């Protein structure tokens, strides 16, 4: 063990991370990359079915053969040679409350998060009372035949065959290096199954699942909504999730059945040291619809482009997103859509805000295949820069392979108006409050898409970000 300690480059990580089994230490010392042994240990500890064990090992092979993406914001702050330090097979790797950065604690304070939840959100506490709420919700929807559970339970539950059938079929581990990493080491997350024709009246919120071991780092969300059914799923919450291991490579897969509709809303607020390399994808059958509502706050660097595959005829997608980049943040967000079926439609609408030297880039890709005739696509993005140091770019890509389509793209980049600030100040608002009101108004079209309590939280979050000082 002492030898190994010297290898550790992330000081604050608890030693228990490496306490897999005493025997594997030799391996670890020789190779600080991700080894077969480590993945097997994870699989064993999670009591995976055999197919999952194989899946993890296969993913590991892809991981080792794939290159790190080089087309986006720099991620060289990640210690890829020492990837093992990001992988956490046990829930035991907790930081101490005293070590949680002050700004995170202050944010909890200002958002009014109850004490018990703060510890949990900071990754230093046990589960809290909302687990009870979760159980009640679970019971309520179960009466409709809906399965809502953590994904580990699903692997051994009555729909285990569905998990096997769909797990990482929308986002295969071959997709990119971090998808492969996810496939090898994923842990925690939600499973939702909505049977044919069932409309789930209450939004299911994974907020209540936040404390599953490993959640917040490599969690996997698998949502299967059958023909004619409806689900609104809400993931994440506005409180910053702090994790001393600063890589997040989660994965969300949504399978939308024929004529089904799924709304997936999320507000993510990662701690400012986080590399958020998340992959989200929906596959939509004939007549189905996927609606994404996405708020990206926090993180050091984000790559986030939820993708919709409009596989069936008449299927459609809507993406509404907002990104807020402050000092030291480089957030690369957007959306991707592939039109395969005929008469499919996509609508991407985003807003981005950058302040204090933050970088917020919008990236979109619209692909309309040869057979996807009579399809429509509209992309609009609006960027608001709050000062001269901040940056915003738009990188829209379209790949249109038939001529019977209707596509549009609109981009607007602007700076906050001094005149508007003076106008509001002349009505008694402080300069900060004036800016916050303008930015809140800019974000209003997104807030309107969120359930009211989340909209309020997002507004609070914007106010907090607006007041955040440099450094």
């Amino acid at each position, binding site marked *: 063990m002492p030898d190994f300690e010297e290898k550790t480059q992330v000081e604050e990580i608890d030693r228990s991370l490496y306490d897999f089994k005493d025997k594997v230490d030799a391996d670890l010392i020789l190779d600080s990359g991700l080894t077969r042994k480590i993945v097997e240990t994870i699989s064993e500890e999670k009591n995976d079915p055999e197919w999952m064990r194989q899946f993890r090992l296969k993913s590991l092979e892809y991981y080792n053969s794939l290159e790190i993406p080089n087309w986006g914001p720099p991620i060289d702050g990640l210690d890829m040679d020492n990837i093992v330090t990001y992988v956490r097979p046990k829930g035991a790797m907790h930081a101490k409350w005293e070590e949680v950065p002050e700004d995170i604690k202050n944010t909890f304070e200002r958002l009014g998060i109850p004490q018990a939840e703060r510890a949990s959100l900071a990754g230093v506490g046990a589960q809290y009372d909302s687990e009870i709420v979760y159980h009640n919700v679970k019971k309520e929807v179960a009466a409709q035949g809906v399965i809502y559970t953590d994904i580990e339970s699903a692997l051994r539950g009555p729909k285990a065959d569905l998990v096997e059938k769909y797990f990482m079929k929308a986002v295969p581990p071959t997709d990119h290096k971090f998808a492969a990493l996810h496939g090898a080491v994923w842990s925690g997350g939600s499973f939702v199954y909505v049977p044919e024709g069932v409309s789930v009246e209450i939004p299911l919120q994974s907020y209540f699942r936040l404390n599953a071991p490993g959640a917040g780092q490599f969690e996997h969300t698998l949502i299967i909504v059958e023909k004619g059914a409806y689900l609104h799923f809400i993931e994440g919450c506005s409180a910053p999730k702090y994790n001393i291991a600063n890589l997040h490579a989660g994965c969300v897969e949504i399978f939308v059945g024929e004529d089904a509709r799924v709304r997936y809303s999320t507000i993510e607020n990662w701690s400012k040291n986080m590399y958020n390399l998340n992959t989200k994808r929906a596959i939509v059958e004939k007549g189905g619809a996927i609606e994404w509502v996405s708020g990206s706050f926090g993180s050091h660097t984000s790559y986030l482009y939820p993708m919709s595959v409009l596989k069936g005829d008449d299927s459609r997608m809507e993406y509404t997103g907002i990104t807020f980049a402050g000092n030291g943040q480089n957030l690369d967000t957007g959306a991707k859509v592939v039109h395969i079926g005929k008469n499919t439609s996509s609508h991407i609408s985003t807003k981005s805000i950058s302040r204090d030297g933050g970088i917020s880039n919008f990236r979109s890709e619209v692909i309309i295949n040869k057979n996807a005739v009579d399809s429509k696509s509209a992309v609009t993005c609006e960027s608001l820069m709050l000062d001269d140091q901040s940056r915003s770019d738009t990188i829209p890509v379209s790949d249109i392979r038939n001529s019977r389509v209707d596509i549009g793209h609109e981009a607007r980049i602007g700076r906050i108006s001094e*005149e508007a600030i003076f106008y509001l100040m*002349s*009505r008694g608002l402080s300069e900060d409050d004036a800016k916050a009101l303008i930015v809140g*108004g*800019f*974000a209003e079209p997104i807030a309107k898409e969120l359930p009211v309590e989340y909209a309020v939280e997002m507004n609070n979050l914007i106010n907090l970000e607006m007041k955040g000082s440099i450094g």
Partner: protein
Amino acid sequence: MSDALLEVKGLKVSAEDKQILKGVDLTVKPGELHVILGQNGAGKSTLVSAIMGDPSYEVDDGQIIFDGEDITDEKPDIRARKGIFMSFQNPEEIPGVTVENFLRTAKGAITGVKDRVIPFRKELLSKMAALDMDASYAERYLNVGFSGGEKKKTEILQLLVLNPKLAILDETDSGLDVDAVRAVTKGIAEFRNKDNAIIIITHNAKILEGLEITASHVISDGRVIKNGGSELVKEVITNGFGSLIGGADNA
């Protein structure tokens, strides 16, 4: 301490390094209504903007005293909280912020206590009714897509809700439509009492009709060249500035 609400003393103001006000004095007491007159570019709007604290103007010399306090270097929000209000000629559009939300926020900023939603809404709707504004405006985004008349009404509505000690109405634009003129007139009637004061920039005889004018001031080339009462306003509206500024454009 004098009993003046506003005292402007020897005010020199420039914008983009060009001096616009070259030494202006003005004293306004509670209960008074002052009319400011002058040709385009004379400095009327500059004067009121400087009183409000518009950052695009620089005060080179002089003082602005409000309610006994020197506010020359204060930011606009502090001035607003002390009781100064200015209606804008071209108010900014603020997308995503409803008139109601904005005004409740602004009133809270000024009084220090944010009203509860329901009582505030009641107050707002009654003030809107007084201005013949449709209740649906409360839900609209502030000034977004508003006509000139609608913007003007909304400015006056803000005046009534925020209820300042000093209202400055910049109605320089001679092209105000009937609706806008009516809104301003009604607003002044509704607002005015013996404890507050009004400064209005206008040449519009309709707006001033029936108003008891305390004093009037003609500004030319950054200076007050003549002070008077309602008779001076009449003269300017009837004859223009010719006789006052010697018939020459000496700007």
